[in-house]
């Protein structure tokens, strides 16, 4: 058998090989997708939308040690209270409080420009040594203490940047 005779067979073999590889690939992908569906089936109960804003005090991912230390330091730095809430920072523009019962830092913004004060409040935490991402899980939340500000800030975010 010379090369000329065997060429069509080689071509057929190559085509069959390609088809086989493609088939196996598709099969593998399908299997992976099924696996991911299976995982979904047994995933923990779906988180409520509001849990993202007000995370339950239990079951949170622990903060990195440094961040946890900074958090403790921030909380302990305040001696001013409003009931059980600790006032960490208070100005004419915004106030930062810590709620022990919710384990939540809350920035209450009094006036416009609310967006700028939101940034300023976050910077207050960043200056303490926390990263922007750690503000999400600290957790810090931002709110308009004066609901009239909704008029001028219709897209105001309760979450820190990039959360």
């Amino acid at each position, binding site marked *: 058998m010379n090369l000329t005779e065997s060429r069509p067979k080689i071509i057929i073999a190559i085509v069959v090989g390609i088809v086989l590889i493609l088939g196996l690939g598709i099969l593998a992908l399908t299997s992976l997708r099924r696996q991911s569906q299976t995982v979904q*089936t047994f995933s923990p109960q779906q988180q409520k939308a509001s849990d993202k804003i007000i995370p339950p005090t239990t079951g949170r991912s622990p903060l990195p040690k440094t961040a946890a230390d900074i958090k403790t330091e921030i909380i302990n730095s305040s001696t001013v209270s409003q*009931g059980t809430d600790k006032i960490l920072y208070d100005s004419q523009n915004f106030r930062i409080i810590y709620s022990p*019962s919710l384990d939540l830092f809350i920035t209450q913004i*009094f006036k416009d420009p609310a967006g700028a004060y939101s940034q300023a409040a976050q910077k207050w935490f960043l200056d303490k040594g926390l990263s922007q991402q750690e503000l999400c899980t600290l957790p810090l*939340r931002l709110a308009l203490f004066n609901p*009239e500000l909704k008029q001028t800030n219709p897209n105001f975010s309760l979450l820190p940047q990039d959360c």
Partner: protein
Amino acid sequence: MKTVIKLFVVLLLTLITYNLSLITIFAASPPNPQPCKNPASTDLVNNYMLDASGKPPIVLQYQVSGNPEDPPITLPAKQFTFKVNFSQLQAIFGASNSNYLEGHTQSQEHQQEDIMSMGSQNFNEYFRGLQKTVPKVLLDEQKVGYVNFITGDGHTLPESANTYTDIDGQGNPKTIYDLVQEFGIPNPPESGGDQTGWNNVWGKYWAKIPTAWNQFYKAKITFHQVNGENDLDKIKSGADCPPAIPEYVNFVMPDFYRTTAIGDQMNRNLVPLAVQSYQQHHILNPTPTQAPGTTQNPLSDFFSYCWKLITSPASVAKDIKKTISLNLPNLLSLPNPLNPSAAFATNDSSVTICVKILNSSKNGQAPYCPLPIEEISRLAGKVSCSNINDNLKLEKDNPNVDCTFTFTSPAVVYKIDPKEGGALFPVCVKNEQNKNYDCKPKVYIIPNFQIPWLSAIWNNTLTSDKDRNIPYQDTSGRPGIYTLFTPKAISEKLFPLSTFEELNRKCTAGDTEACVRLDEIWQEIKDICNPQPGSALDPKDFTNDINCENSVIDSALPGSTNNQATNPKEQFVGATECSKYFISNNAFKNTALRESMGLSQNCDLTSSTGSGNSSNTPPENQPPNNNNCNSTYNLNNPLGNFGDPNCDFDTQKLRDQIMATDPANLSNWLAIALGESGFNPNAYNPHAVDAAGAWGLFQMGRGKNGELDHGDVNWTLQIFNALNYNKTISDSFCYWDIARQLGIAKNCV
């Protein structure tokens, strides 16, 4: 001569009669109140206690390393702590049902009331369902029994010292013992008989005499150990029953016997014999007291949970599944609102747990017994208690109210199993360096509150439910006194859609409510019924374990819950609390009235002491003032400080009030309050959709949508209004824009 003999015989008989009457009088024992002492015993009903997610609340964490081929490892004994505040514990065991049915016969006010001068409304309040429904002859019988008991074995009960004036509220207040000394044992005349003599003696007091006494009964807290995930899975699947460790706590419960007795009296008079779920009615027999430690009670044939497992393993599998997974998680186990951060620290061996408390107005409003002194001696070194003094503590000189128990779980033999916990939550992870498995096995401790009389109360007042270990003579579904007259339409509220097939059929036919319910069930069963992979994608497609799904749906009996995962409710006497108001509100109030009163269409199966405000009673509103609370508030509204005039608002109180009323939606409400007002009870927005402006924490109006649509009130009332208004809109949260934005609102138009 004959006449003399006759006179002699008469004289002799008279003397004998007189002497016998003296013997009777002298047999009476003077009051010797010993509250909480010498409790009686009866069989106890198990109430396993799990956390809000259905998991055991106490977790002991270990760390070991080795291989499956290695011999078993002994996990050493480990200490855990368990806290019980007995002043709060008793709040859910309250006297609500007995007071509701019999009236406040145990209160001094009731005993010394001037009944004859009462207006009809007060008269109607004074005499409750029992006096109105039970025939006089039976009431008389029970009252005579009461007098006999209180001057006999019951002379050590606190109520033996209660003093009564006559029906005009006149005369020196007298104890039952005094009355017996003065008038002898009561012998009420038959109906139509001569009342004259009677009305000059016992008759003057008879209307005030109770029918049932408030006897103390033993209760117990035991602890059941579950070793690792495999055993926990076995329990959930019904294959095993958690063994108790040797540690236990005895405590004393008031009120339940009285509730049982009154419920039983009414049940036998109201419910036709053929459908009475318990027909023996021996609860009020003249000598119900047993010596401590005996179980000769007529209802001692109650099922014991684990005993039933031995005798009927197949049927109990479903019971266990329901009990462990669904029905009781929140029975006693909501986190202590005073210490939320410590509650349910699931990987901590110390856990703070207390009973569910609805709201501040109900805290500790039921009489309670502190931990018995004998228990302090028996548990020497394992318990420390602090004192709480309030007027509801029955044993005033016992300082052991808020107690912390430190117990030790036994050592456990553990065999390394790489499959434990499954693929997603493996307990053991292979260490590639040393080829060992590093394992973090857990030992779970499940507290079990063993309560007397629970089944009988449940049975008499609500419904019998064989699956829930109600007495063996029962047929499930027999009515109690609260449910007997319930119209079918109301029943559907109380007993929502009955079977999975029915739900599925209705959903397929386009019934949105049925589809929503199916979705809810899916959330519940995916952790319980272990549906096969793939069935998760469409809730309506799962049919692989129809029995399991039906067991979930079946749990919609009064007192259990449809949706434990997201809407924790509880059974218990509390459920009867819901039903009685629910039924009467729906039966006797029209829709407009119900709405204006903010009465829910849903049966909120939560507990209550009943002696306080009901959950439908709004908090009192204080008038606004101009106090800005140390510059906390900028009072830029027409009213001034309307939201926090006492300057006492904080986020913990907000959280606690929501927890007390609608714990399942805690994060929803907090997110709404944060988004609407930044937690500002004095928030005011004049540019709201409502021309009257938006006010307060939840930015509500000034009555445009009814009485509950008011944010221009104190923060406690703001919370009350918001939570109750949401109930009138089917818990949809559609009123709040922020709820729509955050995806909290559902089914909004």
